[in-house]
């Protein structure tokens, strides 16, 4: 009877046993969620049968019979719903990738301007950030859309902010490069120059470690990347680079044109996201301690070296994670295109729903696609983050 050692755990009632409770709790949670799903799905099946809508993805093969403009792939209303959705996805990707590039550039400018020693520059930047961040994005999109549609002049009297760039109520027209086989060779020359610059940099690093003397590897490298393609360009007879738009009586010919919807959406997304990125950049730079700058200056680094070698590498670590979520926000916000009738993935999807009634199928496609975009973006940014993150022991 008394073989059991003193102090050994006694038997616990099952409802007081931690493992038991955890298992029961989890089973209950899963069962609850599962039951909810079964209930909702059951209702949906009933309702769809009553409305005579056949479930399944067969409708994707049917003719879409609505026009999409602009598209990156050839598309006509005679094409299938599947092709319409792909055209929409490509438009989303186009807006999102252009938006990310421009918003990053403008955002860095705004963030650095906020920290400027010039009172006027920092105040203007602050006003920009406050106004943009405290008003809804959709409202800004509508405003820019109306400015282009209703406020901008006819093509004949178009605004010309830069030479050969026209803004009118038909959208924005700008010069487009014309493809020439020589460009491929210029690309090859630039790649070779890039490899040479990379090797030069390694050599310069090794030399500096050995002798302490520095080579102007940055400038030489830049020259190696830029000069060969320029040389190839002139050696090839300098073919005319750009297709310049010309004003005809009611419209433009030549050049690359974008619709008012696309221009308004891209402009609003860039202006909006740049305000948020500006604050992230500012926070990142401020997060680098004063002592770092003082130590670098005490070592005799110049202002430029201080920024490039000490401040930026540390600021980047703070900047990258929140920047990832801004990029994701921009991609998701591009779905507001539906408000102004630009055919991004979501607008195409909702048009398909209106025509076919295949709500569940289309929404599943949309949700799966946006989730994939999110996952891919955060994966890429995580890789970059890992490359720049602090390595500790």
């Amino acid at each position, binding site marked *: 009877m008394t073989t059991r050692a003193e102090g050994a755990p006694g038997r616990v009632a099952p409802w007081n046993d931690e493992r038991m409770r955890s298992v029961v709790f*989890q089973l209950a949670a899963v069962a609850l969620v599962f039951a909810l799903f079964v209930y909702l799905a059951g209702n949906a099946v009933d309702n769809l049968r009553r409305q005579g809508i056949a479930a399944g993805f067969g409708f994707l093969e049917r003719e879409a019979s609505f026009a999409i403009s602009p598209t990156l792939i050839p598309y006509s209303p005679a094409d299938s719903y599947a092709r319409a959705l792909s055209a929409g996805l490509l438009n989303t990707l186009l807006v999102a990738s252009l938006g990310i590039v421009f918003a990053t550039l403008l955002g860095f400018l705004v963030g650095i301007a906020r920290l400027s020693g*010039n009172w006027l520059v920092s105040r203007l930047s602050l006003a920009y950030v406050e106004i943009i961040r405290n008003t809804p994005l959709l*409202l800004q999109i509508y405003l820019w859309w109306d400015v282009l549609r209703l406020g901008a002049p006819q093509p004949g009297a178009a605004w010309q902010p830069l030479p050969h760039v026209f803004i009118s109520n038909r959208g924005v027209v700008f010069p487009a490069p014309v493809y020439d086989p020589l460009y491929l060779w210029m690309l090859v020359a630039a790649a070779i120059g890039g490899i040479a610059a990379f090797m030069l940099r390694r050599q310069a690093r090794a030399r500096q470690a050995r002798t302490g003397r520095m080579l102007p590897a940055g400038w030489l490298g830049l020259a190696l990347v830029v000069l060969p393609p320029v040389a190839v360009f002139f050696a090839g007879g300098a073919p005319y680079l750009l297709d310049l738009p010309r004003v005809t009586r009611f419209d433009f010919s030549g050049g690359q044109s974008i619709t008012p919807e696309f221009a308004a959406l891209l402009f609003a997304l860039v202006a909006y996201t740049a305000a948020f990125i500006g604050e992230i950049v500012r926070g990142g730079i401020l997060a680098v301690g004063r002592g770092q700058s003082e130590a670098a200056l005490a070592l005799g680094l110049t202002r430029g070296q201080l920024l490039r070698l000490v401040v930026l590498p540390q600021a980047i670590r703070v900047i990258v994670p929140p920047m990832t979520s801004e990029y994701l926000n921009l991609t998701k916000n591009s*779905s*507001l295109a539906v408000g102004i009738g630009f055919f991004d993935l979501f607008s195409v999807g909702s048009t398909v729903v209106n025509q076919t009634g295949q709500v569940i199928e289309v929404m599943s496609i949309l949700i799966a696609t946006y989730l994939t975009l999110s996952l891919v973006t955060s994966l890429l940014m995580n890789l970059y983050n890992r490359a720049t993150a602090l390595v500790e022991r």
Partner: protein
Amino acid sequence: MIAAAPWRWARANLFNGPLNAVLTLFLGYLIVVLLPGLVDWTLIKASLTAPDDRACAAAGGACWAFIADWFRFLLFGRYPYAEQWRPAIVIAVFIALLLASWNRRLPGGWLAAIWIAGLALSGLLMWGGVLGMPYVETELWNGVPLTLILAAGGIGFGYPLALLTALGRRSSMPAVRTLSVIYIEVARGVPFIAWLFLSLIVLPLFLPPGVTVPKLWRAEIAFALFIAAYLAEVVRGGLQAIPRGQYEAAASLGLGYWRQMRLVVLPQALAITIPAQVNTFIGAFKDTTLISIIGLFDPLLDTNTALNDPAWRMAYAEGYIFVAAIYFVFCYFMSLYSRRLEKTLSRERR
């Protein structure tokens, strides 16, 4: 000596270095060129009364006459005209609630109590049906009160769910953790407009026949579920910032899981994340405009509807600036609150 002060200030802040001098001169030139035109447009040449936008254009300035003509529709939408004093009081109630929240010395319990009382009063005023006020259906709750009710309701209903899923994501139980992660990541990975679309167009499919939920509450559900996912991530950040010792100390006092969380961990985690929470609220407040795409008459859809009036089609800038100013006042107030709190918190922590 005193006369030299502005000059010294300008040298230190505007002309410190060649680059800054050039920038100052360039921006100063732009301001001198643009400012008179802007003042002309907004004030001097603006029309406060005009029959239509062409008359304003002839005067050469802003068309505030559009706002004067339509401001009750912009603020209250299709709410019955004679009863619009009720939504006006609701707006005043919300402003009073926000101002009361500014005072941080008010204990949290009291704050929650006055918010609940304020919301109940707002609901009573909007619905009516008692005290001689005619009943008004939710379909007609338009304009600014709709925005305020959606935002407050979304936050109010989303908050408990956010706490549960944030705790769930940090739970030691794999099934609970997985469910929380799936919910948070799926909700955040898809644009809000898709969730609104789902709740307004797809949700009726999932309900048994005969059961209908008014549009307003369907939008509110989507809104609460969406905000909860973002708030959950904010709260999780706070939970992660609480040192392990706090959990262990609470456990060694013999507190069970829920009491550990309620008495020790959550009060600290929530307090340090208030600024981030307020930023989420600001985002949510701005996101209420998305319901205009689904056809709920918030101030933005009111504006678009009013602009369809052929007499005022060209007054779009004035209309959007007016509505933007309304959003700006609320959002800027919240961001001031969050910034002030951030400062006090960082001082307390030091």
